[in-house]
């Protein structure tokens, strides 16, 4: 059998086979410009060594880029100053930067990942790297300290973003006081929209997790509403609506459509019964397990459906002596599926009533 040639990703697998932390991962994601120091003290080639010494002392820095009319020409560090002092004492402090600066520049680009900077630090043993923009002009400097700070901030943000969303949402039910508080989420599902099919279920599941629902409950709701959403897409003529009513102790999901209705609900509940056309089956649906999967996931299920019914239409002909009879089915008036989930006391979305949750935090 033909096998895929080894791609770059495969090689990454070998290199990345060891344990990779989130911090290391961030080193690939964060760009140099996100962590570098922008406000950089610079000197010119003509600045006197004595002035550089004073600058370093006052600004508490140990190095500075040398810039000549916007052009980055070198870097001068405390080591260069020591060299100048050792050379011939005080007189050399009158020398200019150009005599002692390092012109071999080690730079990184603003758009490089900080992993590139880390590699350069390891290779060159330098304490700081010059950062240049796309035009090669000095944009800032980066030190290992900048990287550590940047990584810590990013890790913190990472945690905070989802935590914050979760925190805000999970306090909803205890912060808002009423006799009976509920949160209603509504989604319209377009017919035959297989591209976005499942997006509503995905959002509902995420919302429940943010509200503090336990993962098992979120999964059960997800499975049930997903099967119902796919039913709307496959069967309902005009699509339909999903309404999720969330209360601290129960979740009720209504799925309604004005489609053809279900002819025989008991038959539809039989495993394997399906009216889905072949093209739907090719997509992996219509196996006749949808309602079964819903039944298994919910605590209570209610299906109301008004399918097409036979209808006799009578019209009088000429002076009402004869009648024209026709039979045509009255159109179905759709299906309403109500799925209920009851939350145990220790799963409640209202944290006051949940002693287990409080102690877990």
């Amino acid at each position, binding site marked *: 059998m033909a096998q895929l040639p080894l791609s770059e990703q495969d090689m990454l*697998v070998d290199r*990345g086979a060891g344990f*990779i932390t989130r911090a290391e*991962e961030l080193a690939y994601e964060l760009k140099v410009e996100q962590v570098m120091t922008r406000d950089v003290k610079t000197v010119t080639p003509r600045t006197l060594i004595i002035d550089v010494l004073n600058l370093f002392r006052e600004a508490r820095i140990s190095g500075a880029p040398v810039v000549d009319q916007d052009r980055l020409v070198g870097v001068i560090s405390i080591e260069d100053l020591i060299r100048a002092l050792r050379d011939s004492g005080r007189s050399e402090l009158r020398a200019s930067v150009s005599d002692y600066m390092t012109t071999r520049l080690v730079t990184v680009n603003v758009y490089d990942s900080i992993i590139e900077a880390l590699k350069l630090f390891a290779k060159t043993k330098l304490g700081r790297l010059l950062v240049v923009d796309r035009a090669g002009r000095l944009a800032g400097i980066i030190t290992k300290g900048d990287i550590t700070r940047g990584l810590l901030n990013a890790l913190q943000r990472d945690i905070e973003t989802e935590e914050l969303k979760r925190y805000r949402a999970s306090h909803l039910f205890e912060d808002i006081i009423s006799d009976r508080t509920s949160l209603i989420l509504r989604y319209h599902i377009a017919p035959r929209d*297989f591209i976005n099919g499942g997006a509503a279920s995905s959002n509902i599941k995420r919302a429940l997790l943010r509200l503090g629902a336990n993962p098992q409950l979120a999964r059960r709701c997800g499975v049930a509403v997903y*099967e119902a959403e796919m039913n709307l897409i496959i069967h309902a003529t005009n699509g339909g609506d999903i309404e999720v009513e969330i209360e601290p102790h129960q979740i009720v999901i209504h799925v309604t459509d004005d489609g053809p209705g279900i002819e025989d609900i008991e038959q539809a509940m039989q495993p394997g019964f*399906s009216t889905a056309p072949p093209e739907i089956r090719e997509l*992996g649906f219509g196996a006749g*397990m949808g309602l079964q999967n819903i039944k298994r996931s919910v605590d209570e299920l209610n299906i109301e459906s008004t399918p097409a019914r036979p209808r006799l239409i009578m019209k009088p002909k000429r002076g009402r002596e004869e009648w024209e009879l026709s039979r045509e089915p009255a159109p179905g008036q759709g299906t309403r599926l109500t799925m209920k989930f009851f939350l145990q006391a220790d799963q409640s979305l209202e944290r006051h009533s949940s002693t287990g949750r409080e102690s877990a935090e």
Partner: protein
Amino acid sequence: MRLADVLNIVQARFFLPDSVQSPSPSVLNRELRVGGSADLMSDVLCYDMSQGLLITGLINPQTVRTAEMVDVAAILIVRGKTPPPETIRTAWEAGIPLLGTQMTMFEACGRLYMANLPSAVRFAGAPPPDCTAH
């Protein structure tokens, strides 16, 4: 078994959106609890696939949505199929790694099982396994 092991065992590669150069390295360490294969999405929902590897020949976006509902850890597409961009994007947004192999479903499953990836267990109360025979 980690996702990195799956890449080696079935010679798989990642499907990524055009804007993404390489998968985030931490996904390679993602631990897979079980494996399960199906070309019927309702079948997937009958098994406890949480933190598992879904092996399938289906490439439409619903594959990802289905996987998301049951907390699948990664999806492996078999038979060398290339999923359409919307499937790749959906997977990326859902944070579910999407992999592809040239191997058949049979070979991919066989190799992974032999490498000690256990089979997913059917949920109690799930519809009978033969219900698709109708």
